[in-house]
């Protein structure tokens, strides 16, 4: 589950991880009030306004409706804040990560400007914590090259990326925290602050059950503070059962509405751009079915795993969800019946089909496994315009005919 920057920063504070302070607001007048409060606490007129969406590249991104407005803006006055807030709120931000459609902005974060002058040089670093699947350990990945796209850094100058693997069951050890601070070239107060920062950040990563935590830029201010200027946090959805407060932070407006609806029926659905819809039991078989659609000359319109119980209700919900997509020209249902009997699934398909009425596109049902022949008989005798197959290769041929 993705979080917004402002939510992630709130959570980091619980673990005493310093962040750029700010207030998230939904209206321009609230933005002005937040600005005045920040300006009086920092004693400067500078502040930053940041669009809150689940995508990166906001600084370089532009508002669709106000093309010269960026998603991140330094402001110097209450008038500035009001103008920028009105430009961004309710409008659509297009960044390199959102695709051409962009994302509607419902919230902005009005935050302190940390790039003030002072006795030492300002620096931007990169740091992230994630799971190294191959080593089966968490890893802290960091670099002196902050504020940039880390994949570019990894590709062009791999020697500038450091990694520190963490022993499972242990915190980030003091020597590891020191190593990180030394490798980032720090000394004195900034060094001490960095040691505290990374130690607490790792505790936050584990304590919140993050699947990814990225601080970019990780910032050293001109007075040697170390803090998170931006934060991207991903939570492990499997762990939300022990963090009900975090589950409440989910922003469904950031997700595809059809995917949200599917989730309510316990269906695992991912929308794609193709013309053949599919409904399958099991994630691996669902992916394999998508691949088969492509090989048969179609393009998969979705991933849809109906799970272990392919009954009339789930099939009906699946039909409704797939049929919302106007690009869909055919639907393939592929169920390997093991514990779930194929004749029951077939009865469910027939019931759902009749209930929905006007389905004007070809439906191909491939049922294999327990009672597959009985299922095929049921479909044949139903009088519906449903084609049936038993072998996967037969289903592929039917898909080919349907798309050509």
């Amino acid at each position, binding site marked *: 589950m993705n979080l917004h920057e402002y939510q992630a920063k709130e959570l980091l504070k619980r673990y005493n991880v310093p962040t750029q302070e700010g207030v998230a607001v939904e209206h321009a007048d609230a933005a002005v009030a937040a600005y005045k409060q920040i300006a009086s606490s920092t004693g400067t007129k500078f502040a930053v306004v940041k669009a809150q969406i689940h995508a990166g590249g906001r600084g370089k991104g532009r508002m669709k409706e106000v093309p010269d407005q960026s998603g991140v803006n330094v402001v110097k006055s209450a008038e500035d804040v009001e103008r920028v807030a009105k430009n961004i709120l309710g409008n659509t931000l297009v960044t390199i990560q959102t695709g051409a459609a962009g994302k509607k902005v419902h919230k902005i974060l009005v935050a302190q400007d940390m790039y003030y002058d002072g006795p030492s040089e300002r620096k931007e670093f990169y740091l992230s914590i994630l*799971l190294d*699947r*191959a080593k089966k350990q968490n890893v802290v990945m960091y670099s002196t090259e902050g504020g940039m796209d880390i994949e570019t850094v990894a590709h062009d100058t791999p020697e500038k990326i450091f990694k520190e693997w963490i022993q499972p*069951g242990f915190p980030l050890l003091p020597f590891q925290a020191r190593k990180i601070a030394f490798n980032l070239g720090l000394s004195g107060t900034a060094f001490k602050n960095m040691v505290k920062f990374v130690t607490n950040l790792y505790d936050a990563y584990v304590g919140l059950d993050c699947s990814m935590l990225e601080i970019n830029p990780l910032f050293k201010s001109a007075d040697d503070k170390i803090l998170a200027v931006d934060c991207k946090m991903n939570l492990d959805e*499997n762990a939300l059962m022990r963090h009900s407060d975090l589950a409440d932070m989910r922003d469904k407006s950031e997700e595809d509405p059809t995917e949200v609806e599917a989730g309510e029926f316990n269906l695992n659905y991912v929308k794609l751009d193709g013309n053949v819809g599919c409904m399958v039991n099991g994630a691996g078989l669902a*992916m*394999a079915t998508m691949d088969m659609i492509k090989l048969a000359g179609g393009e998969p319109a979705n991933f849809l795993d109906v799970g272990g119980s392919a009954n009339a209700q789930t099939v009906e919900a699946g039909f409704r969800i797939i049929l919302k997509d106007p690009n869909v020209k055919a639907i393939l249902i592929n169920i390997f019946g093991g514990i779930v009997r194929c004749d029951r699934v077939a009865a469910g398909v027939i019931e759902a089909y009749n209930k929905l009425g006007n389905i004007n596109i070809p439906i191909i049902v491939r049922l294999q496994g327990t009672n597959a022949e009985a299922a095929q008989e049921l479909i044949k005798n139903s009088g519906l315009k449903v084609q049936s197959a038993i*072998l*996967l290769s037969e289903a592929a041929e039917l898909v080919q005919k349907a798309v050509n």
Partner: protein
Amino acid sequence: MAVLINKDSKVIVQGFTGTEGTFHATQMIEYGTNVVGGVTPAKGGTSHLERPVFNTVKDAVDGTGADVSIIFVPPAFAADAVMEAADAGIKVIICITEGIPVQDMVKAREYIKSRNCRLIGPNCPGVITAGEAKVGIMPGFVFKPGRIGVVSKSGTLTYEAADQVVKAGLGISTAIGIGGDPIIGTTTKEAVEMFMNDPETDGIIMIGEIGGTMEAEAAKWLKDNMRKPVVGFIAGQTAPPGRRMGHAGAIIGGADDTAAAKMKIMRECGIHVVDSPANIGKTMAQALAVTA
């Protein structure tokens, strides 16, 4: 004996008296699996499915001599169940549970490393040695006995592969569902290695999916150890990057964990890679005919 389990394996069920545990234990017993008892904390001393229930895995091992365990414990407690089984001396731990927090599995994997055991899963359909023992949730009748080993990250796709193998006139020695989570006990390479060393297996089907590097690791090992034909398939050729496709581990994170990248390295290492999931059985039959 094929690999991992056989008719002599003494199997206990953790989460024995729950809905899932009861249903699948019944199916396993019907298949002929030697289920010797089960564990449900605070129900020790009672009997379920005509077998003894114990409070702890230790009690169950002491009472029955069990060497294999299958876990149907809910996600919040499943990693603990894995560690308990390892600590009690269970040799083969098969964890079916889906939805275990990743950090729990990072710890559990580390904990069992120093114990003499093998973990299969989690988030997997289990293991079946055809005609001998089923320690899992798969439909047993699909797996007709024979000499082909299957290793797969997916449940229904394993059944599909087994069904094709049988329809191609062959059969299954053992099928291992290794699971679709980011952290699992037994890797593709370890499973393939077991089959390569098994005198009762003549050919291996290796089914992977997007995400991670396990298939590439297995392929590199196979390059120097290809003593039997291996047929491979990777699900998710059409999956978009950055999206989780059902399984927690099935997500394209970079250039190396796409289906195309995995299929390329598998081909280069001598695996018979099929583009279509409909050709798995047929290709195995052809590969065996060539080697014979």
